[in-house]
């Protein structure tokens, strides 16, 4: 475990050192951005719509019973932008994109394509890792920006049409506007940026250390996804603590 952590830190450092050469890799960054966007956007919208809806469905009747249904908009609004959108989208991207990254780099490792790059004096970190890291770090916050309003809308739909809740769009969004600040959205975007870096580096590292043919690729993909999700949830706690401390 400590060996892996050390390798990940070294890979992160080497990626940082390669950053000045990012412009030369721009075409690969655009390709990765297009791939991540196309692969994830529809899933992001569907997932966010239902997350907002479930949140309203679970909390709405309880708040109505206590006569405080007017706070539903703000509560769902804050939950989506500070917690649910960044965490759930990061988990989605870890499963959808992180797995693809580790599988692609892992296959290249197994089939000696990375060795071929090295013999041509092409640094695999600059050629493979850097474009993927930049693309995922840019795209996950953008996906979260899509996720937040869709989640709000999902909550609003349930509040409007569920007879036990019956909070109309106007009062829902009025409360949401009163409660949610720009800083809360930025809070979620910052979290998602850190999550993206964690997913990218873990997935690329797992790909690069792949050994042992197709079975090895399968193992790397599983490890990349599981480790990413565990790290997302651990980071979420510490980032929340940090952001609460900063906002005081």
């Amino acid at each position, binding site marked *: 475990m400590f060996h892996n952590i050390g390798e990940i830190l070294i890979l992160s450092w080497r990626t940082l050192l390669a950053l000045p050469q990012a412009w030369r890799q721009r075409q690969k960054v655009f390709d990765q951005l297009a791939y991540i966007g196309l692969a994830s956007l529809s899933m992001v919208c569907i997932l966010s719509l239902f997350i907002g809806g479930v949140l309203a469905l679970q909390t709405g009747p309880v708040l109505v019973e206590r006569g405080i249904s007017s706070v539903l908009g703000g509560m769902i609004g804050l939950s989506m932008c500070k917690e649910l959108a960044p965490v759930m989208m990061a988990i989605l991207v870890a499963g959808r994109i992180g797995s693809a990254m580790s599988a*692609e780099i892992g296959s*290249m490792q197994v089939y*000696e394509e990375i*060795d*071929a*790059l090295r*013999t041509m004096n092409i640094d695999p970190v600059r*050629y493979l890792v850097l474009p993927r890291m930049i693309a995922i770090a840019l795209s996950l916050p953008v996906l979260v920006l899509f996720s937040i309003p869709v989640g709000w809308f999902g909550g609003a739909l349930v509040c409007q049409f569920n007879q036990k809740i019956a909070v109309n769009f106007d009062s829902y969004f009025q409360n949401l506007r009163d409660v949610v600040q720009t800083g809360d959205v930025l809070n979620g975007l910052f979290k998602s940026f850190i999550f993206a870096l964690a997913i990218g580096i873990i997935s690329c590292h797992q790909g690069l250390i792949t050994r042992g043919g197709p079975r090895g690729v399968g193992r790397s993909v599983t490890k990349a996804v599981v480790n990413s999700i565990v790290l997302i949830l651990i980071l979420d706690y510490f980032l929340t603590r940090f952001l609460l401390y900063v906002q005081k």
Partner: protein
Amino acid sequence: MTSPLHSKSVRVEVRDLRKKMGALEVLKGISFQVGPGERFVIMGPSGSGKSVLLKHIIGLLTPDSGEILINGEPIQNPDVRDKYRMAMVFQSGALLTSLTVGENVGLYLAEHALHAPAEIDAIVARVLETVGLKGLQNRSPAELSGGMQKRVAIARALVVEPQLVLFDEPTSELDPLMAVTIGEEILKLNERTGATSIIVTHDRDLAFATGHHIAMIHEGRILFMGTPREVQENPDPIIQKFITAELAPPKSH
């Protein structure tokens, strides 16, 4: 590799190379020298450590002890790898499947920004024509046969204008006709570039046809080194068994 190009081929010296992989000692003190422009064949049965040796020579693996010198300078020094142009043709071809044939061949030039994109396209077209794959730039490597993939790999090596080129089992998994074609390509590449060539193979025909010198490797050690004729005339039973082994037809009843 952006340093001024060296036009001369290089001398390779391997000194007492040892490597363990897990509990298995794969290389047990390998030493040899390859002169500039020479075609040197490392021949031996599967699992004798030939490919591991080749990966050490190009710096992909680090030895436990011993050293590899290129013109007297250790390969493990990153400056040495920058200083000399080296290429390797992998057993599998190792073409990047996410790129087209043309992009694979021009990858070295594009990544090191050695030419403008239009010039790279022209060089790629010329080199592909040289290896008999004219007009296949836009194909995916997956659409090509094994022999064609190997020729693309040779084209990729050719583009580097190498001073040292390594071939790992270049004729494995190929039919006899294609094996002959690849053997001819190796000879042509050596003539065109004058590059020092190290060829790892268990193909006896290829070894005797291409090698100026042959090293017979067995269980991580060099058994014998000499010209093709000297190898053929060597009485060592292991060598004789390897170079004369043939599948006998079943006796009819």
